[in-house]
């Protein structure tokens, strides 16, 4: 599928936590088809930045524009997957996906197949291993038509084969006009991406 091309524009974005400036007057624009890796050491503010851009944290100063709209009005164009599991332990894998992504069973089973979890669609999420739980959360990438993906440490707990699958998915997403922001401490195996290094403020 091809997405309507969209720009993500960040202007003068600043954030302070406990009187510590995490980032100051950050400004960049991401065009359709670009990948941005946010890097930085532990506590640099990567998660804070991604959540601010996603519209989950209040913007302390500056602007985040999705197309021409402020992000608070365009959150449905964003797919955010963060540190937390984003799935409900007490529900089955399939029900979780149905709730968050809302397609029919066959479609969702295809998505589960892509992340190697097909046999598990009826298992409760809390009975999965760590990595299987992440896979199930990431299966949403296969069901979403949101142009902007914001992924906070998506590689955590994934084994080598799943990392490859995820890389391919991100690549095909931006190839069809999407935007992807992500963080990771591992050296990503993706090839073309820009890097934003945080943590140089103070």
């Amino acid at each position, binding site marked *: 599928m091809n997405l309507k091309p969209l720009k993500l524009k960040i202007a003068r974005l600043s954030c302070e936590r406990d*009187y510590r400036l995490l980032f100051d007057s950050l400004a960049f624009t991401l065009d359709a088809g670009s990948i941005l890796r946010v890097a930085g050491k532990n506590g640099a503010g990567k998660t804070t930045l991604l959540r601010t851009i996603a519209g989950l944290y209040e*913007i*302390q*100063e500056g602007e985040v524009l999705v197309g021409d709209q402020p992000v608070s009005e365009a959150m449905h164009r964003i797919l955010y997957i963060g540190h937390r599991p984003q799935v409900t332990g007490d529900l089955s894998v399939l029900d979780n996906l149905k709730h968050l992504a809302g397609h029919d069973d066959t479609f969702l089973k295809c998505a589960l197949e892509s992340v190697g979890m097909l046999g598990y669609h009826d298992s409760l999420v809390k009975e999965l291993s760590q990595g299987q739980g992440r896979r199930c959360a990431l299966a949403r990438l296969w069901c979403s038509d949101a142009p902007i993906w914001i992924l906070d440490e998506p590689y955590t707990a994934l084994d080598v084969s799943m990392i490859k699958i995820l890389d391919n998915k991100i690549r095909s997403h931006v190839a069809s006009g999407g935007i992807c922001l992500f963080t990771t401490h591992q050296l990503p195996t993706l090839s073309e991406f820009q890097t934003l290094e945080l943590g140089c403020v103070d």
Partner: protein
Amino acid sequence: MRWRWFHQWGSPRWFYERAGRWQLVFGWVSLGLIAVGTIWGLGFAPVDYQQGNSYRIIYLHVPVAFLAQAMYAAMAVSALVLLVWKMKIADIAMQSIAVIGFTFTALALGSGAVWGKPTWGTYWVWDARLTSMLILAFLYLALIGLRASIRDPDQAGKVCGILVLVGVVNLPIIKYSVEWWNTLHQPASLKLTEKPTMPASMWIPLLVNILGYYIVAAYLVLGSMRAILVERERRSSWVKELVDRV
């Protein structure tokens, strides 16, 4: 949008200094008024023919009871300002008023209870006004508890603001419903609503005291706001300057 301290004008420092001056004025004026009202009321007002001297607690009870309710109204205005105009100072006002409002409510309940013993023979009855006063105290407590349970002051302020505004809608309903409930099945044996017909020498000092307590409330609120302001801004340059000067 960044949360501001003030709408357009001023800064936390400006408020701190201006409030300091007003606080001084309020402090002295209220001290004077309360001294006059209380000495007059306790020492020179005539003895009540029914209650004897125990009625004199009115000079404490009525002003604090008035203030207990007025404080909630003030807090509601602050909450509105906070949520609509995002002025941080309104949050500080809310925080101060909640504690002071609770203190007045507790004083009203306490003085009423002390008064109840000689007049009604019991410290507490489930009378309509008493009950709604108790609920008001609970509401203040809920606000204090809610704020204490959230670490981030901005977040706590907004959450408390929501609760205050919901409470505003509900307070008149509480008052009305409780009054209605009580009159339904309790004989109107004890009524606070009927004003005792007092001679002027009794109610003038009362009036003076009421005014004095209002001003003392303003004094207390400003003082506590200044303290909270300094504490929240402790790492800013102007507070450090201030500390250096002292």
